[in-house]
């Protein structure tokens, strides 16, 4: 017992300072991209050619846009761009309320808006979610699990993942929604009592990600449950636990500040690309 207590003391406080304090990210972390089409060489399509998921629209033109719903944040486009028209910042705040807001055209963070007053009254201090993996590779699932560990500890804010849809206020979907999971996903949604939320986590659940266009997937959760809109999109491959937490807390109106609170870990320098 004394040994256990000593080990506990040596481990110290593990919970991160975010959201009140800064979130700490490595120098090489790739968060919200910045698109500066003015730098483009006309007719250049190097970024699109390097992109695995065709996430870039109108490359080399004034209307160039990067769709975070499809982006895997691999950074190959930024490497390929000879002019610096695409760069990734360490802004971890990526979640949005609409699919359209995921399309980045400049240097503006589009932060997720809070639910309306009635929904916030219901869920603001206690949000129970049922997770459904529908073809998820276990990347997004692992990061969702991490939100409950002692580092990120979203239960501080009353956010918990529960064992049954009957106990839940909404579902969190990961994966491109395989045909083989379609029925189970619909039944889980139906089993959740209303009012309820649908949250799409990761590129696969938003657009199909690298599996988009596979003959046996549904390219994400939008449309997989007929007539049911998605309330929150959290992009990434997979999104960092703090990105997930930021999205959920903004949805609940528990985080409202506009300033970016981030600092480096000071371990490894940024110049990583040879």
């Amino acid at each position, binding site marked *: 017992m004394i*040994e*256990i207590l000593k*080990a*506990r003391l*040596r*481990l110290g406080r593990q919970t991160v300072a975010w959201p009140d304090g800064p979130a700490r990210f*490595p*120098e*090489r*972390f*790739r968060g919200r991209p910045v698109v500066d089409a003015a730098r483009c060489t006309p007719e250049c399509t190097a970024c699109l050619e390097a992109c*695995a*998921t065709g996430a870039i629209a109108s490359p080399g033109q004034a209307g160039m846009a990067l769709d975070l719903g499809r982006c*895997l*944040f*691999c*950074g190959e486009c930024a490497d390929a761009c000879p002019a610096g028209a695409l760069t990734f910042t360490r802004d971890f705040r990526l979640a949005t309320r609409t699919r359209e807001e995921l399309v980045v055209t400049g240097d503006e963070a589009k932060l997720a808006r809070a639910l309306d007053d009635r929904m916030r009254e219901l869920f603001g201090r206690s949000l129970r979610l*049922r997770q*459904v*993996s*529908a*073809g*998820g*590779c*276990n*990347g*997004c*699932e*692992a*990061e*969702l*699990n*991490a939100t409950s*560990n*002692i*580092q990120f500890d979203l239960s501080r804010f009353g956010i918990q*993942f529960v064992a*049954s849809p009957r106990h839940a206020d909404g579902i969190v979907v990961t994966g*491109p929604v*395989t*045909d*083989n*999971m379609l029925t*189970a996903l619909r039944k889980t949604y139906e089993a959740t009592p209303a009012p309820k939320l649908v949250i799409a986590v990761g590129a696969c659940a938003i657009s199909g*990600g*690298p*599996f988009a266009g*596979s003959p*046996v*997937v549904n390219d994400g959760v939008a449309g997989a449950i007929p007539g049911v809109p998605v309330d929150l999109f959290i992009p990434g*491959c*997979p999104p*960092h636990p703090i990105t997930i937490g930021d999205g959920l807390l903004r949805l609940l109106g528990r985080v409202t500040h506009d300033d970016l609170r981030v600092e480096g870990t*000071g*371990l*490894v*320098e940024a110049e*990583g*690309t*040879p």
Partner: protein
Amino acid sequence: MADLLETWNGEAVAARDVPVLPVDRFQDGLCEAIAAGGRVSVLFGRRHEDNRVLVTAVVADDREGRLGLLSTLVGARCPSLAEEFPALQGFERELAEQFGVIPEGHPWLKPLRFEHAHIPVRDAFGRSEPFPDIPGDYPFFRVEGEEIHEVAVGPVHAGIIEPGHFRFQCHGEQVLHLEISLGYQHRAAEKLLEEVALPRALRVAESLAGDTSVGHGLAFCRAVEALAGVEAPPRASYLRGVALELERLANHVGDLGAIAGDVGFQPTAAACGALRAEFLNATAELCGNRFGRGLLVPGGVRFDLTAGDTARLAGKLSRAFERVRESAGLLFRSPSTRNRTDGTGVVSRELCDQLGLVGPAARASGASRDVRRDHPFGLYRFAHLPVATAETGDVFARAWVRWLEIERSAAFVADHLHGLPEGPVRAPVPALPPGKMVVSMVEGWRGEIAHVAITDRDGRFARYKVKDPSFHNWMGLALALRGEQVSDFPLCNKSFNLSYAGHDL
């Protein structure tokens, strides 16, 4: 072994040099190789003219570090070898599902992952399109009797876990039989790998099993490099080795925490849950992503470290490892833990070999089997890692082998971060040549990953076969439960911690 084409891990051959034998000689060849101590690492089909299927086997000779390739042409039927060699049961079911080849005499011929056939053939299971919903359409083995009850779990589980269906036949608390029906995660990944351009195929490979992005990504990159006839520079090999061991460390540490959680030992559960992040974060320091996505590229790696970086990273990892050592010690010394783990979910050595288990699950049953030693690749050709084994084959042994591997991987990472060779980290990769074939194996944290890539006459993938270690090991979990209490299932499951996506592809 006269009829085999000899090759080794990551060595491309001309696809036409693989001998195509009559079915009986092909099967005799397999039986002989297995009797001589060989293992069938992969057995897969591909489309051939005149409605037949070209079946190729990769036989691993672990002692000599060699691989043998042999093929045969089959029609709609083929005698099954699964009765004699249960390790082949999954491969034969896969052939039936993907190519309609019915293995005659197969003792357990059921759908494997509810995948549509790759060629227009009659469904081997007599189903018609569209397939009815699973798992309702699965012929579960049933135990009959007045006091027998059935427990059905999944596909949507209690925790944040991938989907699968588990059907227990129970007498009271005792499990007489567990059957695991998978396929919910099937994304047609092999087809995508064959059809999409290389940059996207790499991302698909990294997401085959998302907790094994480096393992599968590396198998993919090494397959492409072997086909193209290039080798990653030494510095890249080191960084790849470091990333692969960091992936093993993160997952093994997380598993120790999860096992602690399932026996209700909170101190290690809480600490390892957080300590796992130290290793994920180290990977993110290297490449920006906690799972190592974006690090690898055919030809090398996309990121490098300065001397200052490696020193700071090594220091941080060594402090994290000391905390892991402390937490693991608490777990293994706790009598309440040992009470739950010792003798629970035993897989005997004999059963392990029959089923062809791989990775820590096999090593926990005493099978000294590790691609890093037996079929070394990249960094592991020069730097040897001692293989960790245990004898008892129970939950304790699977946890203990993980701890031993954590210890060895941590030392390996520290050594190699300090000793990075100078030079570039990326070599150019030319277009792939036509008509080549390669087997690319990597010891992922769950065990042997094998990718087989074959190029067509235009240098594109004619077939890309993926085998995740979970393909073998799910049956190990099912049989480990026999005679156990149903309430010990979560613990046994965590001690294997298998991939659903990796199995379902």
